[in-house]
């Protein structure tokens, strides 16, 4: 073999390797993008679940909490705003507000022993606790995926592939306040 062929083989090998890398990186990015989409839809499912749950909860509480109209109205209003929100930052803000309204509501519930003893209400409360957890966990899963994606988009060498095919960084789903992050504290005392 002459040196020419050796150089040719090495060069072709290198070009092939680069091409292969691009294909793999592209596929990995697409898979990640779809995973993020999937994780986001999971969050939406859980938020919807919360929105569906709230009217029931308010309805169950109404009969017992005659003097807490303000609190109940706050929850209902926050829910209406949250279900109307469209963009990621809007949804984040509205859901944070809803979480704090719910937190207040559940704090007030503490003053109504009959309500706390109501089997129906207890079941709803467990559902709400679980839903808050699900929102937290799906948010966590989503943010993990977004972080992974953002690392890929920013880090060398995958950032070149990402730039070539216009992959953009994902947006984290944050709940600003601490009160929104933790599920509302409910204790049966």
């Amino acid at each position, binding site marked *: 073999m002459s040196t020419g062929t050796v150089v040719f083989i090495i060069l072709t090998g290198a070009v092939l390797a680069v091409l292969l890398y691009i294909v793999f990186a592209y596929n990995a990015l697409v898979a990640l993008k779809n995973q993020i989409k999937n994780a986001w839809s999971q969050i939406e499912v859980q938020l919807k679940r919360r929105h569906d749950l709230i009217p029931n909860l308010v309805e169950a509480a109404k009969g017992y909490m005659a003097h807490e109209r303000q609190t109940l109205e706050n929850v209902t209003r926050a829910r209406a705003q949250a279900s109307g929100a469209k963009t990621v930052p809007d949804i984040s803000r509205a859901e944070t507000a809803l979480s704090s309204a719910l937190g207040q509501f559940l704090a007030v519930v503490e003053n109504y022993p009959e309500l706390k003893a109501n089997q129906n209400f207890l*079941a709803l409360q*467990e559902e709400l606790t679980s839903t808050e957890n699900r929102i*937290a*966990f*799906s948010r966590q899963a989503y943010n993990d995926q977004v972080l992974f994606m953002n690392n890929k988009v920013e880090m060398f060498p995958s950032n070149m592939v990402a730039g070539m095919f216009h992959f953009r960084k994902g947006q984290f789903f944050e709940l600003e306040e601490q009160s929104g992050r933790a599920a509302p504290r409910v204790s049966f005392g």
Partner: protein
Amino acid sequence: MFWSVIAANRRKTVLLIVLMGLLLVLSGGMIGMAFTDVYHPFAGLIGAALAGAVWIAMLLMSLFASDTILLGLSRAHEVSRETYPQLFNVVEEMVIAGALPAMPRIFVVDDPAPNAFAMGKSPEKSCICVTAGLLAMCTRDELQGVVAHEISHILNQDVLYMTVAATMLGSILLLSDIFTRSFRYTSTVRLASRSRRAGGRAAGPLLIVSLVLAVIGPILARVLYFSLSRKREYLADATSARLTRYPEGLASALQKIGESADTLTTAPSATAPFYIVNPYRQHLGNSAFATHPPLEERIRILRAMSLGAGYLDYHRAYVEVTRRREKLFPASELQDVGRVGIREDGQTSAPVRPARTESARRAGDIIRALNGFAFITCPCGLKIKLPPEYREARFVCPRCRRAHLVNRPDGKAVCSVLSGSAVMSRQASAGRAEPLNRSGRGGRDAPMPQEVCYQPGAWQKITCAGCGHEYEISPRFRARRMVCSGCGATIRLAPVHEPDDRSSGIQT
């Protein structure tokens, strides 16, 4: 990301299983050669093929029938959402957190012993089984920790790997058993005569090698198998903390499980690695033949995760507690410190069912307090109740080996020894240590020097008696005294060693 952790772990597991497979084939080959004509070219191969066939038969059997057989053996019955809504909710939450492709089927065993296990060869088709005892004694957070541990077993495909490894172990044991038995009873003479006929050159050494392999093989295979099992437990604990963002939940669940007196009566021994704690309670400690790491160690690792709930935090806690420097996770996962925060503790802090023992315990404590008992609550969670007859100044916690001072109200056994030589002025906090009694400055309001017993080599909390400031003393802290930054008091640390003062006793 736990995906890469799982992938890395899978590679390691495959390596271990390949090692076990090699052992299996090797012992099969050796046995084949020992039994047939040594110089037959295919003797070893036939033995190895037979060993492989035994393994494959066992594997197929356990893969196709294990779920139903094992669930039946442990008397688990499938439950519906209507009867166990909270359990279903907790499992669903963890399915979301772990992004499991499908919801596992949920089983309950009517057994008062608290335990749980997971089944299923793939994340798509899996089952989670908990005992009624677990449901009765755990809070929601604790249940979540346990379920997350089981979900991690499913995510990591532990059941598949452990089944493969267990059948390999089984066939190695079977082969060596057959070999040693037949060797003992019949074939000594035959083998010897054949080797003589064959020229008596290689058969002797070969026989010894295969004998050694028959003895060593099973032990080696067991060690491999159990180390695999323990690694996977650590990984499942770490993933549980990562999924729930709340290591304390699993820690206190494990503690409750460990403290319970009931043992599971229905657990088939082959399923031991799948349970959250070994249902057989081997008291082997950190032995090479335990399916699970020691419970106290798992709890201490989880409790030592003070900064975050990520893999790095678990790794650090692991190194701190076990002092083993081995890597449980790939390096890529050990970069972001504290990014995975710990969430606040849970929603329902009340137990699912109110514990009747708790109120009985409280009543007993009131009577004890009247009778002059001293109460110490150890940071590890144990409440120590010392009878009035106990006159020692110090008490070592039986669970975590922390030393405590016994502060009797009557002052007969108060351990706060003052020593004049250790009196330091306030300037000591500014770095300029100066004995107080020489200058006399600020002598009146100079804080009292204190002596505190502490035990080197473990984290512990020390409270300054002068201002109430609390300190966490690191296990690596080696100094003999420290200056309280709140009031400037000098705190002498008197190291307390375990009661192995036998040497001094001999001298006196």
